């Protein structure tokens, strides 16, 4: 079997970029939302919880369509962002990242939320009696203790982004070099005669990346757990 063609390399690089940006951009909002949902006592918490989890249960195509009408060239948010900040999502790789971030968001939030629930709040109380302001307590006690959960959430988000297809292709289509990630490239190969070779190569690449990400996360999580709980 021969190596990847330049087009295939482009799809791989693009997929990695999209997945990484999606993961990185959703990290801080993910931690914040996880805290709100786990610790917050406010009106509408239930509604927020449902909203965050919607991408998990909705057909991806539906999410993509929502993005299209919201963030598209004529969508109200899309128009606002383009005019105010010059950020354009439609038919750009940034749009693919947005779609992937939203699809992976519930997984990220769930993993972090579980680890927040597992934090012994008595440790935070103890830190308070030692003179630590709540913000410091978060930074030096809570955050280190939930780090394994954050890593797990990041890997899930990254993996979801690597495999995202429905929402991405609906929202930003499959433009080679701009929005054609590995899944949409594989799909494109299967639609043309003689594309089996390319589909197989990209499939192998995505398997390798997935296994690598899993292995990396296990390794990181084990290191952190040893530091946190040893």
């Amino acid at each position: 079997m021969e190596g990847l063609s330049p087009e295939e390399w482009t799809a791989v690089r693009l997929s990695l970029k999209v997945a990484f940006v999606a993961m990185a951009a959703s990290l801080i909002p993910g931690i914040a939302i996880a805290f709100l949902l786990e610790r917050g006592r406010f009106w509408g918490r239930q509604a927020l919880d449902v909203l965050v989890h919607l991408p998990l249960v909705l057909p991806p195509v539906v999410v993509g369509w929502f993005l299209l009408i919201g963030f598209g060239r004529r969508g109200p948010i899309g128009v606002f962002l383009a005019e105010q900040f010059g950020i354009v999502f439609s038919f750009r790789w940034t749009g693919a990242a947005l779609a992937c971030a939203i699809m992976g968001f519930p997984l990220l939030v769930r993993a972090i939320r579980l680890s927040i629930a597992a934090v012994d709040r008595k440790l935070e109380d103890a830190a308070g009696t030692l003179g630590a302001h709540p913000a410091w307590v978060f930074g030096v006690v809570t955050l280190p203790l939930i780090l394994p959960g954050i890593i797990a959430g990041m890997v899930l988000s990254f993996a979801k982004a690597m495999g995202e297809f429905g929402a991405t292709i609906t929202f930003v289509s499959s433009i080679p070099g701009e929005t054609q990630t590995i899944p949409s490239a594989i799909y494109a190969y299967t639609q043309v005669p003689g594309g089996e070779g390319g589909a197989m190569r990209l499939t192998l690449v995505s398997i390798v990346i997935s296994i690598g990400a899993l292995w990396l996360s296990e390794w990181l999580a084990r290191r952190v757990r040893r530091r946190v709980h040893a």
Partner: protein
Amino acid sequence: MILDVDIRHRQGGFALEARFQSDGRLTALFGPSGSGKTTIVNAVSGLVRPDHAHIVVQGRVLMDTKKNIVVPKHRRRIGYVFQEGRLFPHLNVRHNLLFGRWFTPKDARTANFDHLVDLLGIGHLLDRRPSTLSGGEKQRVAIGRALLADPQLLLMDEPLASLDEARKSEIYPYIERLRDEGGVPIVLVSHSVAEIARLATSVVVLSDGQVMASGPAVEVLRHTNYFAQSGLTEAGALIEAQVSRHDETYDLTVLQARAGRLSVPRLPHPIGTSLRVRLRARDIILSLKAPEGLSALNVLPGFISSIDDAEGASVDVQLDCGGDPVVARVTRKSVEELGLKPGLAVHAIIKSIAFDPEALGVTGGENM
């Protein structure tokens, strides 16, 4: 005044209404579980916000609901040693110890790290992780961590409850040293009479969210009715005695108190050591005449100073034995039959086994 507390708080079906003051170097909050001890220390530390409270520590108002003053917990400078230690699992012992120091104002940092580490005997643990420590070691580190934040008061919520007897007696000396060094005043939550008899200089007795009694340990402990719900058999008089000689022939140690001589099974302490001895009220028999032909070694002559009011079968008879307070718990029937009344000369007969080693604490002689 070190501690001035007035708290009213309702939590579910439990109502706490506690008011007391203490100037003790070590104030014990005593009471059965559910009596409100932990709620009080949590309110003082700021972990619980009572409905109504006036809390003053060393002249600093920490909470005054009437004036809308609530100092947040991280600014109270109240050290807290929890029942379960609560060491930070992601930090080693050294960083646990230094945690509070980062947040202490620079000019308030007086606690000496090396001295405290030495006093608590934890120097060899500094690079270890909390999960590798024994229960007793964890509690010593927790005490050090609280003290290194330079608190104005140290709260200890049954810090030894999860430890077995051997571990407890390993930690008692450290608490005694802290008490006697004259640094931070301590409030100790306890439900063991033996423990407070050994450690406390002042005692606050709580029952169902109410203060039953408060005052110097010597005064409070000799009224056994305060301990009716728990530890009735443990309450009694605290007296100070010196080791005067060791009797190798019979393997005994002779102690000298103002009340007289007391023989106890051989103690390890050198001659001249000051000891705090607890004479449990239940273990004392009263006799009108000097007893003869008894196997008990310890008989203290004295006068009845007062007889406590009582409703049940038993009553506390308070004695003055050469200036030492002694209390005997006898039946009301005996009081009547023997004609016991204040001023009467009696002999207090003490079984030597009544000296339980747990209460034999070395004292600094303060507040006794």
